[in-house]
């Protein structure tokens, strides 16, 4: 049966840098890839609430959602993923990773393309973000 999943990811801005997380080596889809905090929305959940929940779960931070930046889609057999990346502002908290990730860093967005192995969502969203923030 055809199924669609909606996922939200966040580019969290703090002091001119953004947060990237490295997925654990046991991840079934993107092991050891760098990605953005986020995840799949629950049925019936509201957009901003879903994004804040996912960010809190994956890295322990509180954020303010600013605006959507990019949308990417991917299809695996009967399952389609629609991933929306938002620009967010860091509000409070210190980074605490869940078992989904093994590492994190705050990095200048322009340097993100130089990281090895970007997850498909980050790889697509980072270029419009760099352009947007360089004017």
């Amino acid at each position, binding site marked *: 049966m*055809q199924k669609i999943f909606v996922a939200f990811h966040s580019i969290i801005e703090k002091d001119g840098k953004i947060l990237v997380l490295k997925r654990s080596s046991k991840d079934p889809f993107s092991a050891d890839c760098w990605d953005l905090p986020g995840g799949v929305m629950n049925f019936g959940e509201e957009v901003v609430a879903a994004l804040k929940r996912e960010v809190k779960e994956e890295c322990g931070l509180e954020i303010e959602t600013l605006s959507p930046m990019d*949308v990417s889609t991917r299809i695996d057999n009967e399952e389609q993923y629609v991933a929306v990346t938002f620009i967010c502002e860091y509000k409070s908290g210190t980074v605490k990773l869940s078992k989904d990730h093994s590492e994190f860093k705050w990095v200048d967005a322009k340097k993100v393309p130089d990281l090895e192995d970007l997850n498909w969502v980050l790889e697509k969203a980072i270029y419009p973000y760099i352009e947007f923030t360089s004017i």
Partner: protein
Amino acid sequence: MTIVAVCSIIRKNNKILITQRSEDDVYPNLWDLPGGQLNHGEDVIIGVKREIKEECALDVFVLYPIDVASKIFGGKHIILITYLSDYKSGEIKLSKEHQNFKWIYPRTAAKMKNLTSLTKHAINAYLKSLST
């Protein structure tokens, strides 16, 4: 069940296009933005272009996403992604889903009482993006 829909705020000469839903469809007579359900496997930008072509026969330049909102309707979770677009070419021809259209200043549109809730959300997000 989750449904992803796409729609667009189409700009032309500082105004945006809104369309009035048919009398005999869901949300009868309310005003919305041209758009509809994403096809399985379809890219979002292609979906926006296709829906605009089907619903009002226009060609547009699709720019970037400006709003994402959701609601539960009829037991389905609907997630609506709104893109900003610029008018490119064509004359408006409505499908049977709509009975009327107008080009309107976004600030005026935001004050209308008979918008669908997701349309109101998207227009407010657009106005906010203009002021920042």
